[in-house]
């Protein structure tokens, strides 16, 4: 099967900065693909390279098997949902949605019908006569989505589409986007700096740092088996242990990562079991977080954080405790 989007050694320079640095990745058809990274990591430039707003300095990009390098945005069968929606303020919602079809020369009655259908799909039936200025942020976002989807793109690009929404609305839209993607079967390429969003929505996540993809894989793999300290730190929070610390506590002589929720604290009568590692440390801080309590432990200079169910144990700052983790909970990383 041909890939929906394929990057072959793509590099994009802006002056001396390498915004995108030798990226090679294939995005499968019908995949919900998230590009995750801090700002300036090159994820948005990658999206713009797919849309055609940027051209690669070197390398090739193909969309559904066809070389798209050098093709202007209006000759690509991909559509974008912009971060600030970029609706046309002088047009009604209906005209906004029908814009792509109007440009294609679809007859007025047909494109109005298609626009209505697209607005139904994003639950904005009856809004076609309004102006974008009369809509709320969440509604504008839906219009932007309808305006892109009405063209039946082969790939839908979403540039931080939920960034401007408040938390509750964002969670609702996450669910709806995912549902929409399953229903339509269109390839979604989604840019975000919110790791929770990427993990919960995507089939596959690519982690960007300094213009390179540092790791790509399904969300569970990214979370469970981070390959580098950067990924371990950026996706969720993690305890990174030095090779010395790891070795002295029975682990491999390598940089390892240990998720805070994998650490448990022993109370008086509990014993260490054979498949567990253990260490001793002093509690330096306890943060109550509702459902969980985060405990910071200082183990002879190595600072570790553990999340425990809130009410499980009576702990105090300054207390010395023995803590344990399962042997298979530690993840060996390729580099610090």
């Amino acid at each position, binding site marked *: 099967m041909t890939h929906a989007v394929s990057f072959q050694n793509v590099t994009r320079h802006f002056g001396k900065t390498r915004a995108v640095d030798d990226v090679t990745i294939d995005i499968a058809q019908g995949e919900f693909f998230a590009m995750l990274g801090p700002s300036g990591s090159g994820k948005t430039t990658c999206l713009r390279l797919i*849309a*055609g*707003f940027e051209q690669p300095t070197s390398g090739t990009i193909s969309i559904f098997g066809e070389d798209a390098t050098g093709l*202007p*945005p*209006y000759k690509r069968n*991909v*559509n*974008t949902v*912009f*971060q*600030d929606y*970029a*609706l*046309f*303020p*002088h047009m009604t919602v209906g005209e906004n949605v029908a*814009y*792509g079809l*109007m*440009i*294609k020369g679809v007859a007025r009655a047909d494109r109005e019908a298609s626009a209505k259908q697209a607005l139904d799909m994003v639950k904005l039936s009856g809004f076609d006569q309004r*102006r*974008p*200025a009369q809509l709320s942020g969440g509604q504008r976002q839906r219009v932007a989505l309808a*305006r*892109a989807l009405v*063209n039946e793109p082969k790939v839908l690009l979403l540039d931080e589409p939920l960034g401007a929404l408040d938390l509750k609305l964002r969670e609702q839209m996450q669910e709806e986007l995912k549902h929409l993607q399953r229903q339509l079967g269109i390839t979604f390429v989604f840019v975000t700096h919110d790791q929770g969003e990427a993990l919960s929505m995507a089939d596959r996540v690519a982690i960007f740092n300094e213009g390179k993809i540092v790791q790509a894989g399904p969300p569970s793999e990214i979370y469970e088996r981070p390959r580098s300290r950067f990924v371990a730190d950026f996706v969720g929070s993690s305890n990174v242990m030095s090779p010395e610390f790891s070795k002295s506590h029975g682990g491999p002589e390598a940089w390892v990562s240990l998720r805070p929720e994998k650490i448990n604290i022993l109370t008086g009568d509990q014993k260490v079991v054979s498949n567990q590692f253990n260490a001793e440390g002093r509690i330096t801080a306890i943060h109550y977080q509702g459902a969980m309590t985060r405990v910071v432990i200082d183990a002879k200079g190595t600072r570790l954080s553990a999340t425990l169910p809130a009410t499980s144990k009576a702990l105090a700052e300054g207390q010395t405790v023995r803590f344990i983790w399962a042997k298979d909970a530690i993840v060996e990383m390729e580099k610090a």
Partner: protein
Amino acid sequence: MRSEAGWGLKLGAAAGLMFLHLPLLLIFLYAFTTEEKSFQFPPPGLTTKWFATAWFDRPDIWGPLYLSIKVAAIATLLALIFGTLAAAALSRAKFYGKDSLSLLFILPIALPGIITGIALRSAFDIMNLPFSTWTIILGHATFCIVVVYNNVLARFRRINSNMVEASMDLGADGFQTFRFVVLPQIASALLAGGMLAFALSFDEVIVTTFTAGQQSTLPIWMLQELIRPRQRPVTNVVAIIVIAVTFIPILCAYYLTREGEHTGGGGR
């Protein structure tokens, strides 16, 4: 509690207004006087015959009037094209020296007309350009471009640059994007800038004096009329026409840009 301005201040304001507008009223008044050699006050009698005289018996008005309209129209057209292009370029680009370049665009309107006039005259001389209608148009275009540029630039700043990309993304090429997305949003700014430019060009004297050959535009014709008196009230009749032609567009431009700010602000 409403604070009242003192009597002195009110009197000062009234005097200021009178100083500004009384001469204008006198122009109107003397268009109707029966005395044709000198402007004596009060006028010995009132008549409307000068309007008829201006219309029927003074063919020398038509040449300058036609020239003024032609010059203003072409200068405005040039300004619309080049002012919009300059505004589009400068609103999008980011480069070293952008602010200085922007200042260079605005400078012609800040410079005294006499400087612009002398500079253009010597430039045309050096280029061996004979003075003609076209040299007047070029002279006027220098300050007309500024007016359009300023208006359109202000509007471009309010247009979200992503909108152009969104349009391209939806399949529109550069021309279609300009036609359907950019133009409708800058249209009122273009109209306002164009009318302002037309009004400025229509009553311009100084630059015209330096760049015209033997022809007279309407303002220059009026100046000559005042020097050699003959049917003096006819000049006032023409002055009323000039007021109408320049004042109405400026008023329209004012209301257009004001309204544009409201809708533009709501659209974001």
